[in-house]
């Protein structure tokens, strides 16, 4: 037999991935060896360091990859400037996301359950809470997810892509289930995400199988090559390719959150712990879109020359999905009453805008997509970070509503996510509101924010591909999207906050299974994260007011960075545009 040949591996090119994933492994070990008190700090430091390291390696690698893209491990990792750019964006966004995750706020509690496995409302849970347990495993999970995403965006091999998909998804499923409050919702979100995610994975991998059947390989570039050369094992079975690519695309579109594979998005975004939602919305979208672009474009390289028919079919798929996504995202978004849900639909709408750009199959799409992902990700993480700070607080009658950090009386509860509850926020927390408004404006694509340059790029992409009518549709959808961002803005900035115990009178919109209802009267001792599936029930003597808790630092830093970046990217985007323009090569 052949002699074993040690594979030549360009470890340096793998460094960003190795750092992040390796740190994840280390993090798991830390759980075992570091004492409980120091565990959280250690984990945070490790996680941030790993992501920063990953980012540093991306920066370090950048010039040489731009000069010469490489394929590592036999093409399993194909490091093109585009992929590297995507890795960098994911690492950066993950870094910001982790900052938000790490913030315990002035309440001293993070957003995660002390023990996620405890049944909500049981004495075991109370005990865990009282003894101050913390689920520090979330940090390695985050690292795994981030690593998976980075790999997802930088592979040419469909099976590696599948594995990366699972590596990024599985931690997210778990993370979704770990919310400290409203745990029923959290668990439900996890279950839905998991079942639908698994379903989508199955579709994806079956698509891979069909492509394999058609081309005899699962390497995109090889497929393209073989199609071009006509060296196909099964002649005349291009239907296999179309079906395969369709299914693979569906798997990716699921992660992107495109209609009609979007249904999980609002539910999961709402139910998951808010910092995780921010992380997920920004990073997963970045990874999935990057992967989608790679798959579609590499396939298109192959089929464009040989079979324009298939090319057209591909384009039709993207166009149809883009139109549906924009329409559904904006239209349903316009009737939402929950901030997180609204942001979820906003993320669907943005998936649509991204697809508009991609559908053009034009030459600048790679760079404009990367810019879009960055702009959108920054605004999204910032926005969800703000959501984590707007809380309900239970006060006893007669207590003054104060908007400062936690006052002595009253107990800070979960996030106040009803839009109506955000009334008067501008008065309570002007800086926070200003930042949030900035994120909304960026998402709305108002000029002088990053979102505008991004949207311009996307629509320009469609127009350059001849799909000017799609750009017009995108513009119309933007108008609707603007409307719902504006609604939130109006409530925050212009409406006076109500001091009346409104939240008590508000109908509890979700059905409350009695077994899991939080305890109304019996006051949980410190901090009182009542494990409840729904809005907090308060007794008549108490009322719930909306308050803004002070960040302990990390989240504030994240918000500030996001806000500044949003403005800089909007006013002076040249530098970043230069970078992403260099990244517009994804074929090694």
């Amino acid at each position, binding site marked *: 037999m052949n002699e074993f040949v040690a594979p030549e591996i360009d470890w340096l090119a793998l460094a960003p991935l190795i750092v992040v994933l390796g740190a994840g492994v280390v993090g798991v070990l830390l759980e075992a060896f570091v004492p409980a008190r120091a565990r959280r700090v250690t984990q945070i430091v490790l996680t941030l360091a790993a992501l920063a390291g990953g980012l540093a390696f991306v920066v370090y690698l950048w010039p040489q990859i731009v000069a010469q893209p490489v394929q590592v491990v036999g093409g399993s990792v194909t490091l093109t400037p585009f992929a590297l750019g995507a890795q960098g964006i994911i690492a950066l966004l993950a870094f910001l996301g982790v900052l938000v995750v790490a913030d315990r706020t002035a309440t001293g509690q993070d957003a995660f359950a002390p023990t996620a496995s405890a049944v909500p409302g049981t004495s075991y849970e109370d005990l865990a809470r009282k003894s101050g347990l913390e689920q520090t495993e979330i940090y390695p999970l985050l690292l795994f997810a981030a690593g998976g995403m980075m790999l997802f965006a930088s592979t040419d091999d469909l099976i590696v892509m599948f594995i990366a998909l699972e590596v990024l998804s599985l931690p997210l499923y778990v993370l979704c289930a770990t919310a400290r409050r409203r745990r029923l919702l959290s668990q439900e979100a996890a279950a839905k995400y998991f079942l639908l995610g698994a379903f989508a994975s199955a579709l994806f991998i079956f698509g891979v199988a069909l492509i394999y059947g058609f081309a005899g390989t699962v390497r995109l570039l090889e497929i393209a090559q073989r199609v071009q050369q006509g060296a196909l094992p099964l002649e005349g079975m291009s239907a296999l390719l179309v079906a395969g690519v369709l299914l693979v695309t569906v798997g990716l579109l699921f992660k992107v959150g495109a209609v009609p594979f979007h249904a999980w998005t609002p539910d999961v975004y709402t139910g998951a712990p808010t910092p995780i939602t921010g992380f997920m919305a920004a990073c997963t979208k970045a990874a999935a879109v990057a992967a989608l672009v790679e798959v579609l474009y590499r396939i298109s390289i192959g089929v464009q020359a040989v079979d324009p028919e298939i090319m057209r079919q591909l384009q039709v798929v993207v166009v149809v999905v883009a139109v549906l996504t924009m329409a559904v995202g904006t239209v349903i978004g316009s009737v939402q009453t929950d901030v997180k849900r609204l942001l979820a639909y906003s993320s669907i709408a943005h998936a649509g805008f991204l697809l508009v750009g991609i559908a053009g199959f034009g030459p600048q799409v790679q760079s404009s997509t990367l810019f879009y992902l960055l702009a959108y990700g920054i605004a999204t993480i910032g926005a969800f970070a703000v959501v984590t700070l707007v809380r309900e607080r239970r006060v006893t009658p007669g207590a003054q509503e104060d908007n400062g950090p936690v006052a002595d009386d009253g107990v800070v509860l979960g996030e106040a996510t009803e839009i109506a509850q955000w009334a008067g926020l501008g008065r309570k927390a*002007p800086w926070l509101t200003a930042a949030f408004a900035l994120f909304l404006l960026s998402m709305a694509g108002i*000029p002088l924010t990053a979102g505008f340059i991004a949207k311009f790029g996307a*629509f320009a992409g469609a127009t350059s591909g001849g799909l*000017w009518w799609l750009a017009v549709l995108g513009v119309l959808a933007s108008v609707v999207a603007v409307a719902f961002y504006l609604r939130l803005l109006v409530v925050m900035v212009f409406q006076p906050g109500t001091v009346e115990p409104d939240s008590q009178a508000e109908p509890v919109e979700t059905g409350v299974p009695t077994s899991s209802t939080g305890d109304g009267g019996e006051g949980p001792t410190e901090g009182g994260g009542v494990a409840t599936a729904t809005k907090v029930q308060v007794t008549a003597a108490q009322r719930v007011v909306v308050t803004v808790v002070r960040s302990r630092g990390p989240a504030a830093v994240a918000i500030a960075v996001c806000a500044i970046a949003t403005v800089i990217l909007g006013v002076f985007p*040249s530098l970043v545009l230069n970078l992403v323009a260099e990244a517009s090569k994804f074929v090694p």
Partner: protein
Amino acid sequence: MFPWLTALIAWPLVGAAVVALGALGRSRTGSANAGTGLARPIALVFSLVEVVLLVGAFLAFDTGAAAEHQLAETHAWIPQIGTSYAVAVDGVGLLLVALAVVLVPLVLLAAWNEQGRDEVRLRRFVGLVLLLQAFMVAVFAARDVFLFYVLFEAMLIPAYFLIGGFGQGAGRRQAAVKFLMFSLGGGLIMLAAVIALYFLAVGAGVDPSKAFLLDELVGVNLGTIAERLMFVGFFVAFAIKAPMVPVHSWLPDVAGNATPGTSTLLICVLDKVGTFGMLTLCLPLFPEASRWAAPFVIALAVISVLYGAIMAIMQTDLLRLVGWTSVSHFGFIILGIFTFTPLGTAGSSFMMLNHGLATGALFLVAGFLVARHPERSQRITDYRGLRSVTPVLAGTFLVAGLATLSLPGLATFVSEIMVLIGAFGGAPAGSAAWTVAAIPGVVLAAIYVLLTYQKIFTGAPAEGLEVLPDLKARERIVAAPLVVGLLVLGLVPGLALTYVDAPAQQSATTIAVDEPADAAAQMGSDK
């Protein structure tokens, strides 16, 4: 050469930054620093220095070549998408910049006591005003389509907050949303056209790194259909901004709910971007499409003239009324622009300035009036017989009203008559007939102005209004420059016409360059 335009743009930004320091702090009424703060004086000083800068710009401007775009500065901004920071003004642009610069200190003075004494709130207010000013100055100076678009949209945001956050009507939030939705809706349609313009221009051989520079784009043949589509994209945005019937619905709500100062900035300056855009973007970029659309546009313009005036007559709310009069006046401006005669175009350009002064005066004086009412009522019928109570206020109101109805001797008359006389001989089909149809607008104007004056100032003083203070010194200082300006420009309009005449000649020439022969024949038959 000193970068006058950049200075004019940057200076208010600096001012906004200065007053904004701490503007986002907590708002607490009655705190120690209430009313003692420096926000208003600082902003006023900034806006006055801005006037000095304006004088410098005027001195540096060569009136002999008013059709040229002067004081030009061009720097690459986002070369990847071919956009530059390119600013320059011709005579029209300079006058509109002047309008923006001059009105801001007056508005600040007029609103001196309007926003209460909470320092934080005041800082926000004056900060937004200065920010808006910077954007407005920039948009009139922009010579890059992308830059123009960016500013066109960006200036909506401060305006939006000024309406929604500082307005005095109960419906201010809805008004702000309506304003923003209409404007953004139009703006986004324009965005599609802007993008298309870029690709078509690059396709037609324009250097991609300069593909948004107006100077590069003018004269590029884009193809008839594409040109028309893009014209529609631009025009819709401008028509909404202008505002033109039937996309005017946001205006009365804004006028009725914003503070008079905000309305002044918004309607007297910001909305000029609509007509300015038609003049400096639509016409030179899409000459063929402009000619194609002109009959339709003229018809809509004249309908706006009459519609706005009729609606003004029917109003019961003083500030809404003033808003409606603007719909009517903008109709005249658009009529002048789209009949492509040098005289009409010059008249429209001049009218943009005059309307700013006249309507600004009317808004501000109406604001003074409303501020005197114990309940700050805007209902016209809540006032009666104030001529004997506040004679100076009444007189100022009347002068502003007469300027609104274009009384000869005031600047507004000169521009209106230029538009009418010019438009009558316009090239597009039906110019003459539509112009004649617009003339009754002057009668309707007399009705809405004098009816309002009659209701508010004549008869026996209304109960509770028997004793009101007359215009204070501060308020007189606000009104005086506007009134003097209207008078001086009415008697010596040459002061301003020097600036608008040459651009108008050039614009009319450009549009007529490849004028087909039948249009000339049309012109003859109209006579």
